[in-house]
C-alpha cells in the first residue's frame, strides 16, 4: 500500500553533537505524505533537536534531510515549505491576532483580499473567530496556542511541525486541543510531525510513533504496535505501565519467568535463550480463588485509580507485579493469577552482560573505561587488546563516588520484579549495566568497582 513516491520527508544518517555530547546518532526515518508522526521520548532524547533540524534552525553534522526528492539540508529555514508551532507559542507581541496570522502571507506578497479570506478561515478553523483585533498578550495560553496554530496553517505548508504545543496547557484544555488537532489533521490532509514526551498524547494522536532515547530511534510503529509489541525494555517501560521481567525462552511457544513456565505465542528465539518479558498490568487476571490459578501471590497494596484499582502483588516466588483490575482485593489476602499466552510479550535481550574493550597493562592489570582494574592472570600479556565481560550483578556500586575505580551517574532505572536494572553512565561516556537490590535514584553519582575475580577476559582478535 505504501508507495515509494509517497514519502514526503526522508531522513538519512542524520547525526548531531553539541560539545562532544552526541544528541542525534545516525537517524533514519521516512515520513509519508499526510501522516501524523510523533517523535516521542524523555527530555534530552534528541526529539526536539531532530524537529529543529527539519525546520532548518539547526544544521546536522552529517546526514541529509530530503523533502520531495530534494536535499534541503542546506536550505535556510525561511525557504523551507514547512511551518512550525512552538512550545511557547512565539507570537509577535507587537502585532494583533490578525497581523500575527497574516505575517507569513504578507511576506509572500499574497493579495490583500485573499489574505483577509485566508486569515478568517484559519481563525474559524481554530475556533477564534472575532478575535482578530485582540492584542495577543491579552489572550490565555490556550488561545495563544490556537493563534500560533492558525499562523502556521494559514500558509498551507506541506508539513506542519509541532514542538510540544500542548505542554504548557492544563489537562482539560490539553485533552480538548488533542481532539481538535486530530480533526485539523484530517481536514487539512497535510503531514504533521509532532514532538512530545507524553506517551498517552502520542498514542492518542499519531498514525506513527517514533520512540527515541539517547539520540537513537528505539522503535517506529503504529500506536498499537508500540504498545503491544515493544521491541525493547526501554520502549516497554516508557509506553504505558508494564511489568518487565527477566525470562528464558525454553523452546518455541514456551517461556519461563517469575519461577513458572508459561505458554506463549512467540517463536524463533531458539532453545534456552535469555529474554525480557513484558506483561501489561491490565493483562494479568486476578481472582480470589488461589487453588486453580497459574500462580499465586499476596496483595501488598491496592490503590483506587478512577476506572480501575492498581495493586502490587508479591508472587509465590518473590517477584513483585503491578496489576490493574476493576475489582479491589484486600491487602494481605492471597490471590490467584493467570496470563493469556497472547498477552505475554517476549523481547530479545539487548545484552546479557557488560562488554568492554580493554588493554592489558600487566599480567594482573587491565585498562577498561579509561581506568585500571586488577584482574586474575588469564594468559593475556602486557599490551594485548582484550574483551572484558562483567555480569550485571557483579558490578558494585558505592555511595561515595571517590571510592570506586570509575565514577558514574545513574541514568536509567528499570524495575524487573525482584531487582533493579540500572544504566550507569561513566565520566568517560561509557555505559555500565548493573543488577542490584539496592534502591538508587536517577541522577545519583556513584563509584563503580568490580572485584578481580569477576572480570572475564578474552583476547581480542
Amino acid at each position, binding site marked *: 500500500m505504501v508507495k515509494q513516491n509517497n514519502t514526503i520527508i526522508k531522513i538519512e544518517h542524520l547525526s548531531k553533537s553539541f560539545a562532544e555530547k552526541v544528541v542525534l546518532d545516525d537517524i533514519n526515518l521516512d515520513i509519508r505524505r499526510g501522516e501524523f508522526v510523533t517523535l516521542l521520548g524523555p527530555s534530552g532524547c534528541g526529539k526536539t533537536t531532530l524537529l529543529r533540524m527539519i*525546520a532548518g534552525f539547526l544544521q546536522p553534522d552529517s546526514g541529509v534531510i530530503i523533502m520531495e526528492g530534494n536535499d534541503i539540508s542546506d536550505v535556510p529555514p*525561511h525557504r523551507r515549505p514547512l511551518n512550525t508551532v512552538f512550545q511557547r507559542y512565539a507570537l509577535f507581541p507587537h502585532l494583533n491576532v490578525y497581523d500575527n496570522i497574516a505575517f507569513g502571507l504578507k511576506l509572500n506578497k499574497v493579495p490583500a483580499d485573499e489574505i483577509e479570506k485566508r486569515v478568517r478561515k484559519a481563525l474559524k478553523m481554530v475556533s477564534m473567530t472575532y478575535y482578530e483585533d485582540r492584542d495577543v*498578550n491579552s489572550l490565555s495560553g490556550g488561545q495563544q496556542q490556537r493563534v500560533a496554530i492558525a499562523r502556521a496553517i494559514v500558509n498551507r505548508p506541506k508539513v506542519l511541525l509541532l514542538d510540544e504545543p500542548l505542554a504548557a496547557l492544563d489537562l482539560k484544555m490539553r485533552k480538548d486541543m488533542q481532539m481538535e488537532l486530530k480533526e485539523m489533521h484530517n481536514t487539512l490532509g497535510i503531514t504533521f510531525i509532532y514532538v512530545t514526551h507524553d506517551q498517552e498524547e502520542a498514542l492518542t494522536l499519531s498514525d506513527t510513533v517514533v520512540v527515541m532515547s539517547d539520540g537513537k530511534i528505539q522503535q517506529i510503529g503504529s500506536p498499537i504496535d508500540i504498545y503491544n509489541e515493544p521491541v525493547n525494555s526501554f520502549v516497554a517501560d516508557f509506553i504505558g505501565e508494564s511489568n518487565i521481567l527477566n525470562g528464558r525462552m525454553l523452546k518455541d511457544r514456551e517461556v519461563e519467568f517469575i519461577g513458572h513456565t508459561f505458554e506463549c505465542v512467540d517463536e524463533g528465539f531458539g532453545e534456552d535463550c535469555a529474554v525480557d518479558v513484558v506483561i501489561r498490568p491490565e493483562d494479568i487476571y486476578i481472582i480470589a480463588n488461589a487453588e486453580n490459578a497459574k500462580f499465586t501471590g499476596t496483595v501488598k497494596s491496592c490503590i483506587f485509580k478512577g476506572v480501575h484499582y492498581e495493586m502490587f502483588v508479591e508472587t509465590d516466588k518473590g517477584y513483585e507485579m503491578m496489576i490493574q483490575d476493576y475489582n479491589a482485593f484486600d491487602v494481605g489476602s492471597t490471590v490467584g493469577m493467570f496470563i493469556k499466552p497472547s498477552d505475554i510479550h517476549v523481547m530479545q535481550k539487548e545484552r546479557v552482560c557488560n562488554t568492554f574493550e580493554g588493554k592489558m597493562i600487566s599480567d594482573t592489570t587491565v585498562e577498561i573505561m579509561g581506568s585500571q582494574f586488577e584482574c586474575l592472570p588469564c594468559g593475556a600479556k602486557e599490551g594485548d587488546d582484550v574483551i572484558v565481560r562483567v555480569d550485571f550483578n557483579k558490578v558494585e556500586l558505592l555511595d561515595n563516588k571517590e571510592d570506586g575505580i570509575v565514577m558514574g551517574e545513574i541514568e536509567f532505572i528499570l524495575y524487573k520484579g525482584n531487582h533493579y536494572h540500572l544504566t550507569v553512565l561513566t565520566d568517560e561516556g561509557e555505559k555500565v549495566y548493573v543488577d542490584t537490590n539496592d534502591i538508587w535514584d536517577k541522577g545519583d553519582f556513584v563509584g563503580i568497582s568490580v572485584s578481580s575475580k569477576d572480570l572475564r577476559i578474552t583476547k581480542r582478535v
Partner: protein
Amino acid sequence: MKKFFAQTYLWLLLALLYAPIIIIAVFSFTEAKVLGNWTGFSTKLYTSLFSGGVRHSLLDAIENTFTIALIAAAVSTILGSIAAIGIHNMRGRKRQAITFLNNIPMLNPDIITGISLFLLFVSLGVTQGYMTVVLAHIAFCTPYVVLSVMPRLQQMNPNIYEAALDLGATPFQTLRKVIIPEIRPGMISGFILAFTLSIDDFAVTIFTIGNQGLETLSTFIYADARKGGLTPELRPLSTIIFVTVLLLLIIINVRARRAARKQENI
C-alpha cells in the same frame, strides 16, 4: 511629630537640591546684569536670547550643541542596538567579557575619556572640530544605548526570531519586522539618554573641540564665566534647558511605567 520631622527633612533636602536652579529660573525673569539683583519682572532676557542681536555666538553654541546631540544620539542608537543584538547572541564567557568591556567606558571618569580621545585624535593627525566632537560623543554614548537595549532583548521570547524565519522572513526582514519593533522602547530610551548625555557633556567636549572657534553650550559658558561675569542671557537659557531635560525625564519615566504595566497584564 515623627511625620513632621520626616516631612521637613524631605523638603529641606529637595530645597537644597533645587535651590540653585530655582534661583536661576526666578532671576531669568528680570533684566539685572548681575545675578541677585531684582529689577522687576521682565521677559526681555528671553527675547534677547532668541533675537540673536546681542549674542550671536551664544545662538551658534546652542545650535552646535543640539545638532551634535542629535547626530551623536542617532548614530549611537544604531550602533548600540546592533551591538546589543550581537552581544545577546553570544554565549558564556565571551558574552561576559564583552558586557564587561561595554561597562568600563561608563564607569571611566569623563575627564580620562576626554584626554584619551584628545591624544588619539592628535596622534592620528585629525584636525579637531565639529567632526571630532561628534565622534567622541558617539563613543561615550554607545555603551549606554547597549545597556538600555539589552533588557528588552532578554525579555524577548527567543523563539520569535525563529518563528519569523519559519514564516518565510529573511534574517534581514526578521530584524526589521520583529526584532526592532520588540526592542524599540529600549532604543528610544537609549536615544533620549544619549541625547541628554551629549547636551550635558563638558569634559569630553573641551578636549576634542579644537581651537577653530567652535563652541558648544558648555564650553561657551565656561569661557564666558572665565572672561568675568556671566552673560545675563544664560539665565533664561539654563531655565529652558532644565525644563527640556525635565520633560525628557518625565517622558522616559512615563514610558517605563507604561511598559511595566503592560508586562503585568500579560
